[in-house]
């Protein structure tokens, strides 16, 4: 190869390297806004109305722990509005799989708190479907965690022996400023690594397969209160706290299915309000 050709090839090579480098170095949140495309794909092109005053999303301005970022979705309908929420969808725009979860909700489920992974600086969208069949959207912005925090498991060995273990807790009254409206709160926890499928095995260099809780349902008696269709952004050991309207049933039941087809079940007696 003569000198000129070598130089040419080196230049081409450098251009490729620079292009790759440049593409990689643009911080995700400053790249083009992915939301318009996401909104169209996730909601099949349905219109998204401004949800201000009807629905709300609460997240800390900065993700303190990238692997466990608390998020609360609420229906905040004004008094006299007879509509009720039917579903909430949580979208973390800059995460590798942006749709964190969709929750279908039953009577009194006007609040859902869970924990998610946040990979980078990102807009987060909450979309509520109300009983009028329309979609209402609100958004917030979260700065990624600093320091050595990472969205991966803190203890890679986890608690493998107890995968699928469930805990259910009932609280006396809802927290927050809501008036006494008869609602109560409960919390479901499931031991599960919820591996994102985006991490490489250090020996084989193959991706560790996706291993997450994909479907979780909770009943109060025979009434379906909550169904979560979960994605990889839900934190390890999925944890959901929600409000509900007590219906006098004697027990709560939960069933979860993970991506390997394991089914986990639990049942707990309803506790009287304190």
């Amino acid at each position, binding site marked *: 190869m003569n000198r000129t050709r070598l130089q040419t090839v080196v230049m081409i090579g450098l251009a490729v390297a620079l292009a790759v480098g440049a593409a990689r170095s643009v911080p995700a949140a400053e790249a083009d806004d992915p939301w318009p495309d996401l909104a169209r794909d996730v909601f099949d092109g349905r219109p998204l109305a401004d949800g201000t005053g009807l629905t709300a999303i609460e997240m800390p301005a900065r993700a*303190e722990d990238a692997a466990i970022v608390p998020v609360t979705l609420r229906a905040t309908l004004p008094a006299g509005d007879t509509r009720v929420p039917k579903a909430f969808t949580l979208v973390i725009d800059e995460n590798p799989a942006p749709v964190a979860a969709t929750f279908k909700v039953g009577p009194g489920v006007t609040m859902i708190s869970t924990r998610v992974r946040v990979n980078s600086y990102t807009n987060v969208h909450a979309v509520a479907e109300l009983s009028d069949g329309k979609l209402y959207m609100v958004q917030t912005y979260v700065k990624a965690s600093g320091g050595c925090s*990472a969205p991966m498991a*803190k203890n*890679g060995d986890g608690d493998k022996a107890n995968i699928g273990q469930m805990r259910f807790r009932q609280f006396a009254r809802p927290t927050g400023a809501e008036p006494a409206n008869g609602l109560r709160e409960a919390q479901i926890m499931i031991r599960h690594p919820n591996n994102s499928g985006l*991490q*490489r095995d*250090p020996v084989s260099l193959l991706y560790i397969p996706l291993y997450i809780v994909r479907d979780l349902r909770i009943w109060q008696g025979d009434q379906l209160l909550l169904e979560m269709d979960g994605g990889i952004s839900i934190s390890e050991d999925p944890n959901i706290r929600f409000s509900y309207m007590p219906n006098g049933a004697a027990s709560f039941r939960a069933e979860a299915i993970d991506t390997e087809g394991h089914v986990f079940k639990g049942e707990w007696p309803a506790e009287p309000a304190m």
Partner: protein
Amino acid sequence: MGSDRQRRRLVQSSYGRLARVAVAIVIIALVGTATLTYSQDQAEPLRVVEVADGDYVHFGAIALMTAENEGAIANVGFVIGDDAVAVVDTGGSVREGRQLLAAIRHVTHKPIKYVINTHAHPDHVFGNAAFAPRAVFIGHVNLPRALAQRGPYYLDAFRRSMGGLLDEVKVVPPTLTVESEMRLDLGHRSLALKAWRAAHSDSDLTVLDETSGTLFAGDLVFLQHVPVLDGSIRGWLKTIDDLKAIGAKRVIPGHGPMAEWPAALAPEQGYLEHLASDCRDLIKRGVPLAAAAQTAGLSEKSLWQLFDDYNARNATAAYSELEWE
């Protein structure tokens, strides 16, 4: 090396054969440039203190990693035996690693046989490339997994605060791992390495210079810099009790000044115990995580630096672990 192979696979799958040829040539070109840069840019030796006969330490700034401090926030050090040198952590950038190398060369010309990483955090491993590929890299048996899972994430995430310093950082995994204990002989200088359960992180390794009695504790010990929880609070508290049995004379914490042993454990033990008991109380009272993270551990605020940068994060991690008790 793993990371090279990994990168090559990525490149192959995304750009095909033509790009592979181009990239191969670029690598040759870049290696040339790097050699050139290295010889031109003779690194200033890092300021090190001889804390005991044969043990040298650079005490990092109590700060977050930034471009200005070149990531030099962790304590890094080296031990010189009759035959060889062992490095304990390499710093938060290849630039810091090179300065550490220069500091070693300022003191001795014995071969650098081992580079020991006390865990996977960027401020302790981002300087590894300055010592590759000649040294034997040693770490906890979980370190390869931790680096593989977190390395690519850290390389992206720290670009925001470190900028171009990240360009030359490479994830260099250990070639020798410690499952429980290992002894290294540097020539009349014996190092005892011990791997721990998940505590500060899930790849914590301590290095005891048995000849001098200096314990390089990595981030299992914090002083002044608020402890950072990235493993297990219950594991860390148990580990603190076990650490007390180590017969060291002095400790080099991962962050903070040299101190007497085992008295140095008391402040962080107090912090972690307060944090744990606050979290247990908040969980019992049904206070949700988001609110709990704002209050747990607050009574310790006046005792620590960088408290506002890490406490809510520690509280979040502790709460979600202790919720399962």
